[in-house]
């Protein structure tokens, strides 16, 4: 119980200080684009009421989840393949690097050509952005698997699936998780971007809509909500990671216990 309280203290101190600073600095702001924090917070409640939550936030979250999962599966799967086969890597890398550099705002129209303007498109846009950190980290993690561990697996002739499941995946998992972590925030960003195109609802759409209709405090409240969303998702992510990488953190913690 006390530990939880202490943790909460640590987590809240800096945000509290920053919010206080923002509050003070912005308090007498007359600028239309940087309204006082007071105003922003006051609009927060009324803006994100139940109606908006079901109409904008929930669809966004669903798209985000689906896109993120799609990217995770595709990124890890492709990353394992590409990481394990040097030839395949040499062949595919230029194309992947080419695609990786394409900015989503110009990519979206192209994706629209293939995937239409519905949720599939948004899902693909989110996935197409989340894919890269997962893919790159998986590839690098796979390439870095310890030689002796590989030789052990080979000498016992573990067949490919067992090698994947029991060696490559766990060995690369710390780095894969780094990628998944990166992808999480990118996913949120792309959720917003995808909803700037051919959308009529969603958190991203709402923010852009506020911005265009000069509802600036509402827009800021939306940005705050994005931040909160990122924070909550990242906490959830850490829970998952702590379970999945228990051996890894245990190994490191046990050695540093002094």
């Amino acid at each position, binding site marked *: 119980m006390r530990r939880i309280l202490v943790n909460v203290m640590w987590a809240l101190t800096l945000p509290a200080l920053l919010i206080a600073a923002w509050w003070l600095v912005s308090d007498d702001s007359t600028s*239309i684009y940087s309204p006082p924090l007071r105003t922003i917070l006051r609009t927060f409640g009324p803006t994100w009421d139940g109606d908006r939550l079901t109409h904008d936030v929930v669809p966004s979250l669903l798209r985000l989840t689906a896109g993120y999962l799609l990217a995770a599966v595709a990124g890890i799967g492709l990353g394992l393949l590409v990481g394990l086969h040097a030839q395949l890597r040499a062949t595919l890398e230029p194309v992947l690097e080419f695609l990786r550099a394409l900015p989503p705002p110009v990519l979206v129209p192209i994706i629209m050509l293939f995937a239409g*303007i519905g949720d599939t498109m948004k899902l693909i846009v989110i996935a197409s952005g989340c894919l890269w950190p997962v893919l790159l980290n998986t590839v690098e993690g796979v390439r870095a698997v310890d030689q002796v561990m590989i030789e052990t697996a080979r000498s016992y002739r573990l067949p490919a699936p067992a090698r994947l499941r029991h060696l490559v995946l766990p060995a690369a998992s710390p780095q894969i998780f780094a990628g998944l972590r990166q992808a999480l925030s990118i996913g949120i960003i792309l959720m917003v971007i995808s909803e700037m*195109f051919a*959308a009529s609802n969603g958190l991203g759409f709402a923010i852009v809509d506020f911005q265009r209709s*000069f509802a600036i405090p509402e827009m800021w409240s939306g940005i705050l909500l994005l931040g909160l969303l990122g924070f909550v998702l990242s906490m959830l992510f850490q829970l998952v990671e702590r379970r999945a990488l228990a051996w890894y953190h245990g190994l490191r913690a046990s050695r540093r216990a002094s």
Partner: protein
Amino acid sequence: GSGSGSGSDNTAADKAGGTVTLNVGLVPIVDVAPIYLGKEKGFFDKQGIKLNLSTAQGGAAIVPGVVSGQFQFGFSNVTSLMVAQDKNVPVKGVAEGNNSTGKDGADFGGIAVSKDSPITSAKDLEGKTVAVNTLKNIGDTTVRESVRKAGGDPSKVKFVEMDFAQMPAALTKHQVDAAWVVEPALASVKASGGRVVASNFVDVSPDLTVALYFTSTSYAAQHPAEVKKFQTALSESLAYATAHPDEVRKVVSTYTQIPASLLSQVILPSWPAEPDKASLETLGKLGQQDGLISSAPDLSKLLP
């Protein structure tokens, strides 16, 4: 806080040698051809204005740029300006931007459908999906008016947001049933066999003012002389553009990349000297009716 207008006096308005440098934020479309033409013809030099024209994708960048004084002037559609005024954004129109041609079926923007679409009139849009470039803006309000005038129920139309640039493809691929398209995308739609089923601007008013050049209220108050010079040069440009459509097409090819084949098909907007106040009142009412703005726009403050 980082106040508005903080940058309004430093870089931009340096009056070195009697000339002022004015930064203007524009959208790279046909509508703003007169200002490019005027610059080319020296109308602005004559007033001692050195013009710096930048293009941005839309109001998202231009309005804050003008409000913060990074731009002295910007180009925007009137509905956006009404919304801004309604939200107390300190903007003020200074000059006519462009007008609808007023010719039904031959306007620079209209509601288009694909070649094989069963839709023949605005009434058929009931229950259909219509693409507009921005929701809750001039596009959907005027399209609703078209539907209403054709005897349909505008509340049954489903709008979806999409860049003009993507509309031709979306129509071809039947991702939307209809789209409110403006030039040059409209020419592109027609080139691939699409049809215009209604001219939504014309349906609102025979002489609808679509866009204005605007500035921030603080700039207008502090630099009336510059505003005046800008207005003078601009009205000369508008008149010249109206008189020389061929030169307009030529200048458009300098700041856009519209393919020549398409450019010759593009319908130019009209550029009268003054905004049409009556049409703006109608537009304001539509905006109010659709809930874009809370009260009737104060046109005396908004218009030059």
